[in-house]
């Protein structure tokens, strides 16, 4: 059954779009836009079949989607059909500054961003799956199972875009998001910076990828990792939701 889901995710046309999970629709949209890249062979493809360059690859798991999703027996209540063990500590230090008028919630429990941090915290093993295939917990090349094993201060991979966003390494939880763009905060028309004009009104500002910012980038007016990132499409590295040429992604929200 897991195999079947993986096959679905590899679809490169819109032929069966009505039956696909929402997460796949974005991919298909990209195809329609003419940027025909998918998660397959991207850095998010941890399967044995990845022919691209990646530090992280299983030596025995050929499925692609399984590292994040499962059609059955996913973690209860965690959308979208989540198959990846979540961080044991869901509280993160968050960005703050004298001019930040938002109040990010440091507890990411229930936040979509916690899903991303289930690998990108640096300490949660990326092969810790809930519903495995017949190979069991996937074996990883070099036994590199955690981002913090490679991306840590002083390592030759430590420079940005080191994917170790949470900056845990050596198995030690850091959960440091204080030097990262804030997430898990409300960005709605009542946001003080919208009133001041330094942020665009998300309900009226075009996202540039169809619809408004609120419709295409926010989650009930909450900003998450996936407001800027599309984990399934490497077209605009690093997995950006749209091109950042002329900083157009940043300037979608920031009125600078």
């Amino acid at each position: 059954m897991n195999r079947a889901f993986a096959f679905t995710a590899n679809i490169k046309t819109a032929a069966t779009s009505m039956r696909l999970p929402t997460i796949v629709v974005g991919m298909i949209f990209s195809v329609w836009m003419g940027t025909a890249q998918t998660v397959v062979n991207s850095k998010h493809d941890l399967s044995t079949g990845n022919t691209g360059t990646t530090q992280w690859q299983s030596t025995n798991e050929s499925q692609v989607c399984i590292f994040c999703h499962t059609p059955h027996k996913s973690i209860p209540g965690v959308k979208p059909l989540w198959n990846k063990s979540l961080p044991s500590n869901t509280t993160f230090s968050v960005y703050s500054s004298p001019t930040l008028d938002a109040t990010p919630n440091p507890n990411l429990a229930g936040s979509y961003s916690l899903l991303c941090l289930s690998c990108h915290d640096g300490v949660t093993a990326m092969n810790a799956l809930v519903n495995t295939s017949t190979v069991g917990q996937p074996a990883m090349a070099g036994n590199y199972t955690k981002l913090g094993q490679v991306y840590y201060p002083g390592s030759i991979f430590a420079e940005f875009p080191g994917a170790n966003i949470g900056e845990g390494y050596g198995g030690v939880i850091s959960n440091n998001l204080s030097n990262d763009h804030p997430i898990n905060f409300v960005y709605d028309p009542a946001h003080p910076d919208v009133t001041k004009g330094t942020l665009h009104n998300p309900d009226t500002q075009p996202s540039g990828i169809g619809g408004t910012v609120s419709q295409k980038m926010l989650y009930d007016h909450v900003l998450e990792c996936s407001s800027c990132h599309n984990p399934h499409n490497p077209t605009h590295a690093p997995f950006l939701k749209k091109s950042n040429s002329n900083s157009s992604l940043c300037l979608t929200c920031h009125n600078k």
Partner: protein
Amino acid sequence: MSVLLCLTYTPMPLHAQVAQSKHNLSVSGSGTIRATTEQEICKFCHIPHKASPSVPLWDHTMSSVSYSRYTSSTFTSTYKTQYPSSSSKLCLSCHDGTIAIGSISTGQITISGGASLDPDQSLAAGTTSNIGGATSTNLTDDHPISIGTPHFSAAQYNCSGCHYPRPNNIVQVECVRCHDPHSESKDGATKKFLSQSNQSSALCRTCHKKTYWATNPSIHQSSTKTTPTGWSHNGYATVATNGCESCHKPHTAGSATRLLKAVEQNTCDGCHKGTTNAGVTEKNVSSESGGPFAKTYRHPTYTMDTKHNPVNASPITSSPTEISTDVSGSNRHAECPDCHNPHGAKSGLHAVKSNSLSNALSGVWGLEPTAVASWTQPNGFTRIDPATKEYQVCMKCHSYYGLGSAPTGVTTIIGPSGTNITDQAMEYNINNYSAHPVKVGANSQTGSYAPKALASAQMTSVWNTVGTQTMYCSDCHGNDQATSTTVAQGPHGSNYKYMLTGTAKYWPTNASGTLWSLNDMRSNLNSWSTNLFCVNCHPLHSGGQWKNNVHERDDHQGSNIYCITCHVVVPHGTKRSRLIGYATDPSPYNYNGGATYAKLAVSGFRKASGPFDYSENNCTFNSVCHGNQSNTFDP
């Protein structure tokens, strides 16, 4: 819901466009300095993940140099321990000129910028944007940042100007107090990323309170005259719209102390240069040809540039002051702001028969010497801020305060005219027997006895309110040219000794260098009526009439008897009536020439009851003239 949205949504302001500013360093930027291929705009400064420092998600490589800082004699603040504070360090990561413009955590973005960039792609020294200067460490000529406590008083500064209503009042005096790096044209004339319009220095004045600016304003606050071509650095055209920046420059100032555009006198003569200045006609106080400071006898304004270091007065509500040691000894100086307060100065010439401070001196502080016994050097002073009388300004230097002890009134300091400088506070002491009415009208000269004033017939028609009229120092001392729209009136410089001004300018000798005598008047010699300085106000001999019977006396009109045989050479004030000097008086009160009468000859004088009531016993002499007489003589 839609109604609510209309109320809360502010449309994007047109000026808030970093993409259209010089800070768009991407290939799409419009400035000289921009990337050759890089398309992203924000990334030159910001990064969304793993930023360092975290706030504000910073990514540009930081500079590690340490900076020299602004200071001045009136700067009483401390700097923060961390200098510059973190937010200003961000700006300096490009603007000190040490780090390549494209240097970010992921590598170095290639930049083109021609001569604006050094070979390492950092900002070249000499470019406007490089505020670190040639050494990349020089912030002495830039407005101070990262000011800690203690700092300035509420009398001088608006607290709310620096302390924003932000959490912890965190935004104090840092680069971002005046600049918005994301918006180039909130001040569209300056286009220096100012945080608001600085027309007429509206931005400067959010913090700075300037006396004589908001109330009782200076002509510099309102003048619609255009500044000279090339003078304005902020794009504004007039003195009023340039505001503070008519004279001050907040970055890479020409003269670091007080952030002046140039050395102090050259800041003033940037505009005040007569007709030689491109686009501007203004009174000339320059040292260029024709200017008063190019003349033979002048205040040393252009030759001393480091001596004027006033300190904050106490209470600080009054203007900065200089104590005696700041203006005496090796610190003696005469800079423009010693006599003028450019923040308070107004337009207009001084009045006649008055000593009230003239408009040009408005707002400057002065000294009122304490009255002492006759012919004693006053050494007590009351600071008057602002000065109300012109002489109070002169007294700052021409008294014990600036001269030091001189019990005889005579110092060892040789003035530009080649004679020893004397103490004017001593000479104008109201307890002296006589003095020109610079300080008080003749009737108020306490030390004088009746008749205190001259008869009105002894004066020109202008000076006809004898006894009550007063006068200015600058009635006698000033520019040798007649004042005009381009000629300044005051005692800046002159080609005549002692900077004597008026129609007649020679004293105590005539144009040929010979001492004036009554014979010149009797025989109409040496152009006395247009050259003898005293006749500007004292007719002496007109319509065939002498104005007193002393001058009328034939015996006194010999060609070898001179004005200075009886009168002091420095005719400010004396311890005898009618500015008479005694043979025992020292130079320069005593001319002390070689000939018998080329020096003071009198040994006793008693003022008569009227100008024609003098007799031989009003004067006594030891061995000359009419010898010893008996009377109650002035001491």
